[in-house]
């Protein structure tokens, strides 16, 4: 007899639900409920947050085509001057709502348009939030709503065998500004990594593929910290980051990535040649 898949599918749904309940500590976590007050409390306590005050801009696609790979861009407009302390991204309804926190260092820059982009999984219709912490410790939030669903359990790797053959490959690129006088450079870091969230079934073992994802990434320019990122499995397979940094002497980038298995991956780029 052919074996059916219904019971496993049910188990998968329950596990995803259980995971979300664990993180949220709520009796129910359906789309209609506003979970933000709890998330805010956990992340920022009772600190006040300014909303939609123009200090931070979040760009999301007008229509989500593939919930497993949704591009998000955060911009801090040039009108905002001075150092930035941190940036946190949330997707309220994801099993782990926190996408990433970036803690900025001296090489992140103090002027110009600073930005950060990545690609995320979206498991349900959800609010997406970017919370910027400026040097004075004040918090500024902007929120968008995303109509996308199913990105977490979906296996985004279209060719898992080809991907696993390249596992750990890191590419780092820098993009000099069009004008030499611009103090801000752009860069991209990409890593071949499944970023398994523990919600995908392995049919051969009938077990969930264990969670394994990029937990930490440190980016330095000429030895100075641009940012340190703490990530979760809300970031898509083959994590991809675009960001800005302040112009230095050499503009050499060094990137160190650590995943939840403790494996370390490194990448660098030397625009002037080695």
């Amino acid at each position, binding site marked *: 007899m052919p074996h059916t898949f219904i019971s496993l599918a049910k188990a998968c749904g329950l596990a995803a639900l259980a995971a979300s309940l664990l993180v949220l500590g709520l009796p129910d976590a359906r789309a209609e409920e506003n979970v933000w007050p709890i998330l805010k409390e956990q992340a920022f306590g009772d600190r006040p947050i300014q909303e939609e005050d123009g200090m931070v801009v979040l760009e999301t696609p007008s229509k989500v085509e593939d919930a497993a790979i949704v591009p998000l861009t955060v911009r801090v407009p040039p009108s905002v001057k001075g150092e930035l302390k941190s940036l946190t991204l949330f997707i309220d309804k994801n099993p782990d709502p926190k996408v990433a926190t970036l803690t900025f260092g001296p090489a992140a820059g103090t002027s110009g348009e600073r930005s950060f982009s990545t690609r995320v999984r979206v498991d349900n219709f959800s609010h997406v939030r970017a919370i910027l912490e400026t040097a004075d410790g004040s918090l500024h939030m902007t929120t968008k709503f995303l109509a996308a669903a*199913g990105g977490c*359990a*979906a296996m985004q790797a*279209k060719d898992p065998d080809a991907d696993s053959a390249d596992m750990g490959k890191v590419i780092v690129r820098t*993009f000099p500004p069009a004008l030499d006088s611009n103090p801000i450079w752009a860069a991209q870091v990409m890593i071949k990594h499944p970023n398994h969230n523990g919600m995908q079934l392995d049919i051969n073992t009938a077990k969930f593929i264990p969670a394994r994802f990029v937990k930490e990434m440190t980016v330095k320019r000429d030895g100075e910290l641009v940012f340190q990122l703490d990530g979760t499995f809300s970031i898509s397979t083959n994590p991809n980051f675009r960001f800005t940094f302040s112009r230095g002497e050499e503009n050499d980038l060094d990137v160190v990535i650590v995943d939840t298995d403790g494996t370390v991956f490194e990448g660098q780029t030397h625009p002037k040649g080695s």
Partner: protein
Amino acid sequence: MCTPKLISRQTFLKASLALAATPLLRYVPAHAAAADVSEVAPGVFVHQGRYEVQSPENRGDMANASFVVGSEGVAVIDTSGSAVMGRELRDAIRAVTNKPIKYVINTHMHPDHVFGNAAFVQDNPTFVGHYKLARALGTRSQGYITANKQMLGEATFKGSEIILPTLSIKEPTTLDLGDRTLLLEPQPTAHTDNDLIVTDSKTNTLFLGDLLFSVHVPTIDGSIKGWLALLDEMGKRKAARVVPGHGPQTMELPEALEPEQRYLATIAADVRRQIAEGKTLAEATKTAGFSEKDAWKLFDQYHVRNVTAAFAELEWE
């Protein structure tokens, strides 16, 4: 090209009478309609799906579904997108033959080709697919079930389930239907990582599954590079006719492949240029491949997703 011949009402009635006269078969139609199929070559029947996305109205009837009748039994090639459509396909088979349904072959993992499998469990056939099909369905089953239940509606989706292959094809394999054989050839990653090409030996009919789209915009769920490379190989094949996964019932090589080759090559060229210019994924999805917009149906539904997939693949070159 062979002109598709619709099953005449007379043939249908004769078949029905023959069935009624065979009490052992205990054939009881569960509903009024059998799927609309055409005999495109002797013993080769194709049902043409609609150029639509899943809805309660179309009941998941989007992909072409075929069957081949041999002297010893029947092989089904793709089963449409719901149990109810699978049952109508089964009724169409039973309207032309009472031979046992020996094989149910899925050309790849997509819901509009596999959710009708459930209707054939009662025949206890061998379910056949590419050796990577089981893994692909396993990792996606929850998403497929949730999404299709939502799009088709609970009532229409009822009874649909993921049935995994019981025979996995890793090397070219021949299935025997008595007076004819089917050749099954697993392909490298192209439309998906589990595409299978089926050839009916007797009529030299190729069932290409979703390696060939016509009218309906192609969808990339494997590798754009792999697909373009495979299309070059497919163009060298000789066949009396090919059956696309979406499109008319039959087409001819190599012309049938040309629009799809042009579509994929345009995306690849546009995306590669934008990557070289340092553009982002979000930027590419607004422009790449839009010169193809008027050449396809369902462009708005699938094109941006295709560019996203192409970008995420080609940026590693």
